[in-house]
């Protein structure tokens, strides 16, 4: 019974928060660009979300005649499904969370790899050169950034001695892992940005070069699903950063869930700040940055952490 309550609560919670994120991002971008952002509809403009939803639901849901129809329809569902399934392993609080897998972290990495298919298939099935370029870019970007995304987490796993996210959070009671794993945190944030296709790394979309990249041909709620999928991805990456590096639900006075939500919120805002602040790199810069800087950094982090863990355990 409580499992079903958890599932429904987390599902509706994430989707609602993801919708609210659209409003939050626009307000925050406005804040950092000396504007106000949407502030007319309802208190502080929060009903803008509702207006946007009504708009996007009543838009024509069009499939271009030149598209590969079944693949075109299924692509946006994949991105939603993979990020939502990833939430199954996130431990929100000691008693809140859907499943406690002993390979939780690997499960997340696997699901985020599957998410690439959505973008790639969307770009491919649109039968449009800009979409295809976006899809190809995303495939190259995700493959190269996933390599060190996994490697950056191995340090955390080595310190905690477990792949289970609950055990990792529990292992941070003495010290949050961002202190020994500062390098890993940095690499993970960069990889997470690339994984969610957020602004400094939004080359698959790149509206100034590729119109809208892989979702050029999408409209209506199919486009909305890519959008919501991206925002759920942000929440997912922020929640993982919190769980892996910032002690998850641990914290004084306030209840565990509140701590988790607060910390996640800070990282969500940080992601928006990165969007407001940083320009998009060129594609070759992105690739060389990934392979020549981030991969060696994560390997270095891995070696140092491994040596330290070995030394502490007395060889």
């Amino acid at each position, binding site marked *: 019974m409580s499992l079903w309550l958890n599932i429904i609560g987390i599902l509706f919670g994430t989707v609602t928060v993801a919708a609210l994120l659209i409003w939050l991002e626009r307000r925050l971008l406005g*804040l*950092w*660009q*000396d*504007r*106000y952002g949407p502030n007319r509809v309802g208190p502080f403009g929060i009903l803008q979300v509702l207006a946007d939803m009504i708009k996007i639901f009543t838009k024509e849901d069009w499939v271009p005649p030149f598209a590969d129809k079944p693949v075109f329809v299924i692509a946006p569902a994949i991105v939603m499904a993979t990020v939502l399934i990833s939430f199954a392993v996130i431990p929100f609080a000691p008693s809140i969370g859907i499943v406690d897998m002993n390979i939780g972290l690997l499960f997340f990495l696997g699901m985020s790899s599957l998410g690439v298919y959505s973008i790639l298939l969307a770009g491919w099935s649109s039968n449009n050169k800009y979409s295809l370029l976006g899809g190809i870019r995303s495939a190259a970007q995700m493959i190269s950034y996933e390599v060190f995304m996994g490697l950056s987490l191995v340090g955390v796993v080595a310190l905690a001695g477990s792949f289970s996210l609950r055990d990792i959070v529990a292992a941070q009671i003495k010290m949050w892992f961002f202190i020994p794993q500062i390098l890993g945190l940095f690499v993970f944030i960069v990889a997470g940005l690339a994984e969610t296709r957020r602004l400094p790394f939004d080359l698959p979309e790149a509206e100034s070069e590729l119109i809208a990249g892989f979702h050029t041909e999408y409209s209506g709620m199919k486009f909305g699903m890519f959008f919501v999928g991206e925002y759920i991805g942000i929440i997912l990456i922020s929640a993982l950063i919190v769980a892996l590096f910032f002690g998850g639900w641990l914290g004084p006075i306030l209840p565990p869930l509140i701590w988790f939500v607060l910390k996640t919120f800070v990282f969500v805002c940080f992601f928006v*700040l*990165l969007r*407001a*602040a*940083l320009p998009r790199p060129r594609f070759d810069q992105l690739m060389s940055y990934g392979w020549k800087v981030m991969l060696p950094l994560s390997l270095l982090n891995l070696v140092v952490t491994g040596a330290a863990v070995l030394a502490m355990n007395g060889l």
Partner: protein
Amino acid sequence: MFISALRTIWTILLHAFHKRETVLYPEQKPYLPPRWRGRIVLTRDPDGEERCVACYLCAAACPPDCISLQATEDEHGRRYPEFFRINFSRCIFCGYCEEACPTFAIQLTPDFEMGEYNRQNLVYEKEDLLINGTGKYPGYNFYRVSGLEIGGKGKGESINERPPVDTKSLLP
């Protein structure tokens, strides 16, 4: 490169405490300069008569052809428009009509709040355009400075005008 990225992020974060550039429009009206080219009006001379002499120069100058009028005369020989119509759904607010007007009758004003739900309501007739003032040129009265003879004012009675010379007389 990494340092400069961090610096950028910090600078942008500090922008949260800057003054907003946005003017919250309907509550807070923006300043419009006096020469703002907005809603077009027809002005009157200081005596309260219509300044427009229906010369059609504004209609000729108008790039989108949105001005339409019909000239007529009263019993004193004074010209005025029988109707004067501006279609503001076509008007581009270029101000050429104001430049073309020889009598300062047609003028553009600092007002742009002309939104309508019905397109037909954007067609302004003469009674919508006429105002009860002189607009930008307070003392100007065309018929007081022109040499034209109309009812109540003979030849040579205008301002800065001498009576006409009697060419048939030999007197100096």
